[in-house]
């Protein structure tokens, strides 16, 4: 015979062993949720910093999606690399023209006195299509979408969209963007003809033979984006077999006050790496279609 006290004690103390499957699933989902939540909170907490960063010129640093193509084509031609066994400008340009699309990855790591500035480090996925234009998706902390930028050939404009702040901005193409966007070989040649390059020889990248070129303090970047930097070294690696870019690396030193604002006036070093190129892949039209939600407002900067 159970008394009321006995039942109370029984109810207080009952336990039910969870199945191993349920245990694992709940724990995994909880840890994933926790991780995601902390990222979003981190992003939110640094929202103001990023807002300031977005207003600075640093995000425009590599905002011209086609710059790598123009620079690569140009330096190869004017770097005097036209020799029997070397990469030939005409081949590169032809290969780029024939590859109707491209997708690649770019990482930007910023450091100050050797210490990484994690809130300024971003990963970018770039898309390029002869038919539709270009687009980049900029992520912080691996999966927080900070900004999308569309270069629309049809509209002749660059449109930046910042989902975190539900804002967007439309800017007419710069002259340089229009030139590369128009894909006029003569115009690209004119743009880059004064650049001097150093040959780096050959090396293997991801199993492909590549030929490298290095440029210092090029003016081309400035033609595309209004960034003030103290120095720039950029290296481009071209696939010997396909004559298409395989990888690029750039190191910049910046004393721009918009950037050193975050480091107490100390110089910032930026390392940019573009890799994982996929040329002539099938890209859906909707990647390039701009759909700004109705509640987005125009950027305040």
């Amino acid at each position, binding site marked *: *015979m*159970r*008394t*009321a006290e006995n*039942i*109370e004690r*029984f*109810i*207080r103390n*009952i*336990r*039910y*062993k*969870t*199945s191993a499957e*349920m*245990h694992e*699933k*709940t*724990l995994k*989902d*909880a*840890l994933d*949720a*926790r991780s*995601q*939540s*902390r990222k979003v*909170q981190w992003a939110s907490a640094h929202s103001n910093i990023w807002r300031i960063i977005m207003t600075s010129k640093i995000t425009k640093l590599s905002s011209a999606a086609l710059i790598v193509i123009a620079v690569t084509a140009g330096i190869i031609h004017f770097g005097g690399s036209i020799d029997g066994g070397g990469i030939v400008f005409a081949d590169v340009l032809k290969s780029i023209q024939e590859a109707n699309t491209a997708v690649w990855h770019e990482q930007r790591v910023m450091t100050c006195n050797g210490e990484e500035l994690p809130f300024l480090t971003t990963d970018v996925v770039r898309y390029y299509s002869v038919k539709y234009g270009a687009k980049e998706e900029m992520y912080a902390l691996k999966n927080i979408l900070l900004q999308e930028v569309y270069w629309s050939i049809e509209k002749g404009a660059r449109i930046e969209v910042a989902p975190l702040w539900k804002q967007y901005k439309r800017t007419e193409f710069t002259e340089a963007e229009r030139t590369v966007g128009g894909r006029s070989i003569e115009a690209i040649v004119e743009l880059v003809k004064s650049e001097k390059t150093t040959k780096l020889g050959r090396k293997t990248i991801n199993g492909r033979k590549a030929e490298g070129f290095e440029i210092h303090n090029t003016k081309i970047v400035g033609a595309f984006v209004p960034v003030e930097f103290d120095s720039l070294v950029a290296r481009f690696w071209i696939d010997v077999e396909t004559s298409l870019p395989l990888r690029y690396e750039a190191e910049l030193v910046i004393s721009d006050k918009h950037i050193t604002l975050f480091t107490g006036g100390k110089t910032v070093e930026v390392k940019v790496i573009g890799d994982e190129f996929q040329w002539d892949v099938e890209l859906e039209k909707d990647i390039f279609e701009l759909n700004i939600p109705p509640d987005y407002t125009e950027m305040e900067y």
Partner: protein
Amino acid sequence: MEDKLLIWKLKKGSNEALCRIYEKYEEHLLASAISLLYDVSSAEDVVHDVFVSFAQSADKLKLNGNLKGYLTRCVVNLARDKIRAIQRHRVGLDKANPAGSDLQQPSHAVIRDEELDRLSQAMGSLPYEQRETIVLHLRGEMTFKAIARIQGVSINTVCSRYRYGLDKLRSLLNGEVKK
């Protein structure tokens, strides 16, 4: 480890603290959910959702009472939502099928523990308010006053729900009345 320390570590980003909290309370929470829902898979869903939600919002957590009570309240709230959803669904089915449906009966999922099974069956025959009051008081370690506040009724009503519920449970478990 003390719950306060676990919460502190969790807020500092410790995954280990999250695992520790889960392992400490999962069996308790699951048994509470089964007591309310009399259905193992629904109870597992509730515990899963409560814990994932807890993990998401841990940084905003401001614990007034103890962690066990807080998590039990979360289970009770979610179980209540689930019961309401089932009732809504049942109303819809009743309209379509006046002969009734399986959802009027407790689920048939097997409860492995015999004693818990008996208790769950007995709990399942109580009105939900009485069931909830018993779970909140005995398993969530909440006072009648606190339960009155969250149920939006007077403390006397809560005391009555508890007393009637417990009396009926005693009768059912002692075989004095048929379930």
